[in-house]
């Protein structure tokens, strides 16, 4: 095992792949519908596609946290939790500040 690399990155890779594929599929259909002139339903699917993409990095942190917890890597589990708190706080703060 290379230093720093994990034995099983399965859950993280799966989260990223699912997020990418779902978002891509929704956006492709949305663009096709928009080109066909079906603007309203296209817009709804486009919003869903963008939101799935925006949620993916957050879910990726949760996936990594679960993975580190399973591997009993307490230091990295803590890093994941802190990261999650930072990202969520930043977004709430950012929106509120405006």
């Amino acid at each position: 095992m290379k230093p720093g690399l994990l034995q099983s990155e399965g859950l993280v890779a799966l989260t990223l792949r699912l997020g990418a594929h779902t978002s891509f599929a929704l956006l492709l259909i949305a663009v096709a519908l928009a080109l066909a002139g079906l603007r309203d339903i296209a817009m709804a699917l486009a919003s869903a596609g963008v939101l799935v993409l925006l949620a993916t990095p957050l879910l990726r942190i949760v996936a990594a946290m679960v993975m580190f917890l399973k591997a009993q890597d307490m230091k990295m589990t803590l890093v994941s939790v802190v990261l999650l708190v930072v990202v969520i706080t930043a977004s709430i703060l950012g929106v509120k500040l405006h």
Partner: protein
Amino acid sequence: MFESALSILALMAIGCVAGGFGSLAGLGGGAIVTPLLAIYFGLPMHQAIGVSLVAVIATSTAASSVNVEKKVTDIRLGMTLELATTIGAAGAAIIAGHADRRTLALLLIAFLLYSSLSMVKRAWTSRNEELQKSIPEYKARNYPVGLAASLGAGAMSGLLGVGGGVIKVPVMYLAMGIPLRVATATSNFTIGVTAATSAYIYYGRGDISIAFAAPVVAGVFAGSLLGARLAPKIRSTYVLSLFVALTFFLAVQMIYKLATGGIR
């Protein structure tokens, strides 16, 4: 609301180029999306940055889903650095909300020129480069330097809608002793969470236009798939040279547009 069919296709093409650079050279592509939208689509700077952030998340997600599986991404290192990139990104995104378009445009021009010049060297040295097949053993060192650079890269991301790889990759490679391939993959991995942090703030402010983001992001995904297929057949020198030319051209265009009042 969606624009005309022609502009939808043009936006997809922009995303496709950005996604292609992402998977071919590990370049975020954000450096291209923000200026293209501001110059040719007349999108206000804040909205151009917002859409670019979403495109950057897409590049990172698409590339990382492959890189993590191939075990070239150092997840531990990446997530540790993310502690700094996210704080930088959040701070910068909040500041960007109060910055005027001229300041953002000038910063973007400086960033484009820096990216262009820094890649000239990499394009030149990669002429006879063999693809690094196996990853050598390594141990990350100089964490304070890496974290400081990550804070800066995160801030750059939140301010300009770029990935910040041009800062992180050299620092990881030269100062932290990370092999180049791992540094590139890990930087790409961290970009997703970093850009997402500022994207949430831009979204909350109403600076992410779905009508623009949807076709660009669809293009990014298509471009990354295409890039991954072409990667074994294209020399990285050509890709990097094209990137240098494009970013330099966009910097000049931005200067011209800013001087003539064409940047909203």
